[in-house]
């Protein structure tokens, strides 16, 4: 790239110079770990780079904080899911040892479903997945979860609402 920058890159460049250290410090205070704070801050700027029109940003720090906070939550959630997934492998009657690559793919898939169904009760999640992934009928699901068929239908209603909201976000 030469000396002549387009407004997009110039805007990001200025933002980086002015706000990168500030963001590292802010994230570091939350995480208590300067090393991961730098990772989060860099990743945050990467996300800003992919925004359709960064020149329209009015409050850069508010935007950076929002993205960084989302990344931190995502990172924590990823760890939670990974821990629980490994736990479930250990609990399985037959030991399973997925490769690191398989594991990473599963965690990504888990994260996507978790985001989609976030906020539903454990039973509602189970009902929805039994239906969508395994094709169980509502009454089979009711039997498996020990709830009435009409309750299963309500779980489905809640899950479909979440599907809608997830696409709005």
């Amino acid at each position, binding site marked *: 790239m030469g000396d002549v920058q387009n407004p997009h890159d110039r805007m990001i460049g200025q933002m980086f110079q002015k706000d990168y250290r500030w963001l590292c410090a802010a994230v570091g205070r939350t995480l208590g770990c300067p090393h991961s704070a730098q990772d989060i801050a860099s990743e945050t700027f990467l996300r800003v780079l992919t925004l359709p029109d960064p020149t329209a940003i009015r409050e850069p720090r508010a935007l950076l904080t929002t993205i960084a906070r989302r990344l931190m*939550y995502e990172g*924590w*959630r990823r*760890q*939670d*899911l990974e*821990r*629980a*997934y490994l*736990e*479930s*492998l250990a*609990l*399985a009657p037959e030991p399973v040892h997925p490769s690191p690559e*398989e594991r990473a*793919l*599963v965690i*990504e*898939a*888990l994260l*996507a*479903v*978790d985001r*989609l*169904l976030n906020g539903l009760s*454990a*039973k509602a*999640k*189970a009902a929805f*997945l*039994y*239906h*969508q*992934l*395994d094709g169980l*009928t*509502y*009454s*089979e699901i*009711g*039997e*498996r*979860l*020990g709830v*009435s*068929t*009409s*309750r299963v*239908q*309500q779980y*489905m*209603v*809640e899950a*479909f*609402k979440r*599907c*809608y909201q*997830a*696409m*709005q976000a």
Partner: protein
Amino acid sequence: MRPDDAVIDEAAQWMALLQSGEASAGERAAFDAWRAADPRHQRIIEQMDGGLNLLRHPDLRGLPRNSLLHSLNAPSSRRRFLSGSLSVLGIAVLAGLLGRRYGWLPEAGELATDTGERRDFTLEDGSALSLNARTRVVAQFDATQRLLALRSGELLVNVAKDPARPFVVETEHGRMRALGTKFLVQQGDDFTRLVMLHSQVEVVTAGGARQVVEAGESLLFNAQDILALEHSNGQESAWMQGRLEVRDRPLSEVIDSLRRYRRGILHLSPEVADLRLSGLYPLDDSDRTLQLLERSLPIRVTWHNSYWVSIEPSIPPNTL
């Protein structure tokens, strides 16, 4: 409630109905009409489909279900700061899932009724069982006990005497144990209601709370607790004669009873759900019941078609 929330709720109800695999041709046609009625409806359904597509992840299907559910129920570390009890809840749910998986198999002996259908059965021990509409029970009789598992809906049973084998009705919230007696059990989503018509029954909730209920009493309980012990109002078994009798009950409860007798979507706006009413209504003619309700309450019943009815507050004339 934002105006959109009601529409999103309606859309989700349609999706749940269509995906149940039990929607009739009429209901499907009503759904098409609903979708065509407003471009917003179509858009919301498309977005819901989009959310469903996120589940078409090849790595998900291959994952054992227990593993998937256990992972998704992992307590969030962000929330762990706020509430340590969440992780306890996660473990309890997992234990419940595993317990059911290994301890309980579906079996024959199922008795069920459809929407708008009531049926009487004579059980093998001579007990008389009546099922209200949309009810499902599984009878498991053996040498030591007579067990009726009520999965959903409402039953009335007149138990034949058999001192050697207690008669037990089980719901998701607890067990009711009798020797010879007549009683009514209604499994709601959040509670079970027991109404004693003769003699007495001992109730043990899933969480271990105990209560003896005598003739003329009505007990409300959930899995943890006894919620209320009241005098029966004598109207609970009116459905046996096809009547719905209510005295000072919320509209939402009346509509729930009516839903057992109607196909399609009956949408009740939350603004009018708590209106209280008393009256005697025909269950087998739910159209007429809805007309009667509209006449006696500040509500407007909109008949989009016979499978899609919404109930909203009527607009008082003085605000126009």
